[in-house]
């Protein structure tokens, strides 16, 4: 459809026809790559994708979020509050910051490893993690274990594997692995596929 004609096309979808995934973390943790992989996998599975990234100054150690929305006729590139079917949080404090986005009953995967802000304060992630454990059904994943088993740069893809194992996405591991192959340099592919499978395995489903 020519975008010029889009005005005359009524929006027809219902919310059940689409999946919203929010990815949140600290600049440098690989939210952009994770979002691109999810988007690419969703397109391979036949969905249209719309989303948004944090790029620029905030990437230098600031809070970053990526929005990935899959389905027909999605209007906004940003997920409205309370409508994320899935949240992948690469850091416990950032998970807490994003909870207003979570849909009741949504899949919430959180890496427990805190990233201490460079501008030092009291934050060490423990209060955030404790709160999330008490008040949400978040699935916690050990960041130290991921780093030990898969390398320091694999938290993003391991969490993606965990969420996929929890049935968060409208596509399977084949689509994710194909998307990784498309988006990654060949020399990093094996490491990331291992991380994906590790994340799925530790979730135990």
């Amino acid at each position, binding site marked *: 459809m020519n*975008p010029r004609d889009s005005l005359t096309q009524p929006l027809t979808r219902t*919310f059940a026809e689409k999946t919203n995934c929010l990815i949140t973390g600290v600049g440098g943790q690989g939210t952009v790559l994770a979002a691109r992989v999810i988007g690419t996998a969703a397109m391979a599975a036949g969905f249209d994708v719309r989303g948004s990234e944090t790029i620029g*100054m905030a990437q230098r150690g600031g809070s970053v979020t990526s929005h990935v929305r899959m389905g027909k006729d999605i209007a906004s590139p940003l997920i409205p509050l309370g409508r994320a079917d899935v949240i992948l949080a690469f850091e416990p404090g950032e998970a807490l910051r994003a909870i207003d986005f979570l849909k009741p009953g949504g899949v919430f995967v959180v890496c427990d490893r805190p*990233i201490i802000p*460079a*501008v030092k304060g009291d934050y060490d992630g423990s209060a955030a993690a404790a709160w999330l454990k008490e008040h949400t059904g978040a699935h916690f994943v050990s960041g130290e274990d991921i780093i030990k088993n898969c390398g320091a740069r694999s938290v993003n893809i391991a969490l993606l594997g965990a969420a996929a194992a929890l049935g968060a996405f409208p596509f399977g591991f084949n689509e994710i692995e194909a998307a990784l192959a498309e988006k990654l340099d060949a020399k990093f592919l094996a490491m990331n596929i291992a991380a994906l499978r590790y994340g799925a395995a530790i979730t135990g489903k």
Partner: protein
Amino acid sequence: MLKKLLMGNEAIAEGAIRAGVVVATGYPGTPSSEILETIARLRPGGVYAEWSVNEKSALEVAAGAAIAGARSMVTMKQVGLNVASDPLINLNYIGVKAGMVVVVADDPGPISSQNEQDTRRFGQFAKLAVFDPSTPEEACAMVADAFACSEEIGRPVILRPTTRVCHSYASVELPPELPRRTIEGFSKDDGRWVIFPRLAYKNKPAIEMTLRRLSKELTLYSGITGDFARAKKGIAAGGVSYRYVLEAFEILKERGFGDAVKNIRVLKIGTIPFAEHLGVRFLDGLDEALVVEELDPVIEDALIRLCGLYCKRIKIRGKGTDDLPLAGENTVEALVKTISNFLDLNNGLNAEAGEKQGRDIPAETPALAIRPPVLCAGCPHRGAFFAVKEAMAGRRAVFSGDIGCYTLGNAKPLDMVDTCLCMGAGITMAQGLDRAEPDAVQFAFIGDSTFFHTGVSGLINAVYNGADVVIVILDNGTTAMTGGQPHPGMTRTLMGLRAKQVSIYDLVKGIGADDIRRVDPFDTAAAKTAAARAADLKGTRVIIFEGPCVNIVPKGNALTVLSAKCRNCGICVKKLGCPAISAGADEKAVIDATLCTGCGLCRNVCRFDAIVSRHDGEVAQ
């Protein structure tokens, strides 16, 4: 048709290539940088792309190509347009032969910019047509229409995406490739291309007539939906705000307000100016209209003007009535409330379903981490700032900053950026600060790419006028903040061709600075000495700190803290502001091995030799 998952900037690049762009130029600036990078990456035959030294140069290169008959595009961010405004406004007076599209990315928020200026408003001031996309797919399709429009009116045209178009992505159907125009080459045309007062006088009415014509005929990407006959209320929107309005409608429908939403008329605006008859048809019979847009009330003002011209008694609501915020981005959540208020819908809450205002959170949440953007672990700028700070301890010194990663040197604990205004301003503002307060030592920090952009003229000004300043050039070998673009100090161009490197040292020497020193920012002792020495000299002194950006060189081995030797003095944690070091539970320093690049700055400041390379640390412990 083939659909690709593209970011808005990639979609604009695909659109430009398919529309037959021949020359593409620009200067990096968030959120515009990926457009030119994508053109260069796809690099089809016959397309030339360059990072120019600044936006003014970029626009002039593109203008030269366009008056010789080659379709050209130039990309920049909104504040870059200020730098390029001189050639752009004048180019409108002489016009172009082939289409020329000036892509200016605006940044509501602002998210990564100094200000919230609105390029649609700039377009009105410069008397140019502005295309305003609401999605990546629309931006992609708009490029060809913008080129066609530019050729039809014989003037440059602006394409103005905003951050949420540039950095959002979508499944985009790629448009067909258009046949390339033949490039006629430059023809002298009896003075047509030489702007004299007489020519400007002659061409001004033609520019005005073009604008009049566009405000009669330009209907592209604009249109009306909703109930035509009975509607008493209408919503007008442009850019990504139009998409937020659609999303807000979906939420209101879900909450049982489907009928109210169905009964309003919607005007979507895709260009400024837009055909007046669309606005008049939209306003016809309405009691009230709400205008939803970001940055300036441009559509709002246009509708108010139409109400006057056509004697319509309609209340236009928007920024002028404080229905919309005066700064920052629009959000779906805020618009649900604003639209509900406009339509008298109980704040958009379904009372029967017991919907309440506010968050549905079971308990007080703990305080969130505060994460201002900071210099990366291993950033050479940290070494430079730290050394100058130490050398100037106890002395009256002012640290002028500039635009780039090193603006982040203002964060505590470094706290080394006292001023920041615009690209290149630090060097020259320091000269004014010195004229007003000659007793203080004036330092001006500027990055390599920014120095080439507009810093060189400031240095010439200093040397010529005998200014008493220390200019610190932070040469990290790339344009780091925007993602590592090449610049004249490097050996490669955007197209990957070998480039003749412009030496910053030779340039500074050639201009005639009174004293020049090159220093490694990670050699803390030498760096401190250089800063103290420069502060004691007179005249225009230049220190060039040469250390590559941590994102362009392989990461070194991480360091570690020997806890037996660490005395909890806190210097490494409290003075450097490095993201990789923090105080552990026992107050001893801890280095995060996943972040540490082994730059050694913390090892340099440790008085107890407690910081060692990870390998040595394992042996020792």
